[in-house]
């Protein structure tokens, strides 16, 4: 067990975050605190601003105004990068390399080497159930398996914060359930997991969810709380309810 760094109570802190691309406003005054040790579901339709928010947190996109901090440091700063694992929505693994070569590459880029790298590799490949395929070239694997390789690459360096863009797409229900168990095992160890998903029902397993809509936070809270507040049975209905209430208010 690696000694935890001084645990900040808040893993992600976003204040009045705005991002404009020319005349388009992708994020419009987003304010959000994500407590350490939780799984946060980032929900919303295409174009809601989920990917832009994640890219700003990673330092890949510059914010227009506002503030974004990860683990107590400005988003994208050099000392925070080694502690943040990322799985993009695109496949983003080298299809012409083997499973283990991909995982080892990202391990090395995040600063782990030698026996520790070997041990971490074994652990994450077991988790994504690819131990028997570690020498296979990714191009030979199915779509679901490729996404598991991508997840393994995000996990290998044991980061304190995980940003996962659609980690469960194309993963069968049984393994998806295991992923969620694993996410909670990580949060039990003080890690924080932020993920986006299209399966609104699986977001019920998140500690908290954020509904993003048109670049603004429509609602933020525990799934049960949001359902209760909207008087709905599931997150999908809760989301629709909030969208309609929001548009009713403004128009």
């Amino acid at each position, binding site marked *: 067990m690696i000694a935890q760094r001084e645990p900040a109570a808040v893993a992600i802190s976003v204040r009045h975050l705005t991002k404009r691309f020319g005349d388009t406003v992708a994020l419009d005054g987003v304010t959000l605190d994500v407590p350490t040790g939780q799984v946060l579901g980032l929900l919303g339709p295409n174009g809601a601003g989920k990917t832009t928010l994640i890219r700003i947190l990673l330092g890949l996109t510059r914010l227009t105004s506002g503030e974004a901090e990860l683990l107590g440091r400005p988003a994208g700063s050099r000392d925070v990068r080694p502690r*943040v694992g990322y799985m993009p929505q695109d496949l983003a693994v080298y299809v*012409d390399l083997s499973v283990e070569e991909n995982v080892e590459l990202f391990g090395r*880029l995040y600063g782990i*080497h030698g026996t520790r790298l070997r041990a971490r590799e074994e652990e994450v490949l077991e988790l994504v159930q690819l131990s028997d395929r570690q020498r296979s070239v990714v191009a030979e694997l199915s779509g679901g398996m490729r996404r598991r390789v991508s997840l393994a690459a995000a996990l290998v360096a044991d980061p304190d914060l995980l940003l996962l863009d659609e980690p469960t797409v194309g993963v069968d229900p049984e393994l998806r359930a295991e992923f969620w168990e694993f996410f909670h095992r990580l949060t039990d160890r003080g890690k924080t997991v932020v993920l986006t998903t299209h399966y609104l029902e699986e977001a019920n397993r998140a500690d908290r969810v954020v509904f993003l809509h048109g670049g603004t936070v429509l609602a933020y809270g525990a799934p049960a709380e949001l359902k209760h507040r909207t008087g709905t049975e599931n997150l999908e209905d809760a989301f629709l309810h909030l969208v309609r209430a929001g548009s009713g208010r403004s128009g």
Partner: protein
Amino acid sequence: MALRRVLAVTRKALGQLAHDRRTVAFVLVVPLVLILVFGYGFGGQPTHIATVVVNEDQGTVGSALLAALPSGVLDLSTVSSNASAWSAVHSGADRAAIVIGPNFTAMAKAGSIQLTLYLDGTSPTVAGAVVSAVESALQSVFSSHGNGSAFRVTSDYVYGSSTTPFIDTIAPGIMALAILFITTVLSIIVLVRERSAGLLERLFASPLRASEFVAGHALSLTVVAVAQVAVLFTVALVIFHASFSGNVLFAYAVLVLFGVGNLGLGMLLSAAARSEFQAIQFIPLLLIPQILFAGALFPLEAIPVAFRPISVILPLTYAARAVQDILLRGWGVGGVALDILALGIYAALMLGGAILLVRRQA
């Protein structure tokens, strides 16, 4: 810059190559094909030139001259008159005619000869080969027929000799040109692949710095360039029997340095382009001016004066000149220091530019 992350990138890139045997073959076959094509295409001397002869000489020197022509260069056929010799060249049936007049032997003995050549000037190379074949025959005939002082041509070669094969003189330029082709194109393509499927974005979300990314790829591509230069030298030495008077290893190192600059250029262009398609479009734009204006295949003196300044900004100019000076003139570091400096600056600028631009694509 962290060496470990640089090496992680290098290892990854070489791993990709190792998995792709076809690309490995490609990477080694392309220089082979290029040097063979250029070598046979540009490096050959004209041989078996169709030539007609009119020999009206009443003595023996005319026949001796014909017998002394270097073998294989001219394919001789005989016609009976000056007029038909001219029309053979005029019709295009023959490239040249050698007209030996009736008094040739007498003139030779008197120490002054008259020899007429009809030449097809449409190919200066061919015409030049005919002239030099005839001149060399004249020299050998008159050195053995005494009293030849009026015709003796004294040739003093500072570099090379009258028998230096053309391929020797052109091989350095061909090798530099081949390296330009291969390294530039390969690095453009390698980086284009990185841009696909969100890989660059993922790499730059990690602690990896742009400088480490560029250095890692530069290292792996340098490994490839080292192998490619080896192929070029092997072909030049074994297949073309080129013989160089200078230090082959030094020339090897200069070619690799040139390769590093080119792969920097490839990465820079790939990073600057907005799409993969755009990146590929840079290739002809980059290569054609250098083929023509860098003095690699054609001497700079063959370029119109107005265009010669272009060569100053073409990296191939410095690479070709340095490799020519090293291999053909036997010069050492002192002689080519400025060219090496220019290649070093080129490499630094290109790699630096690639570092500045590559993150923008993430």
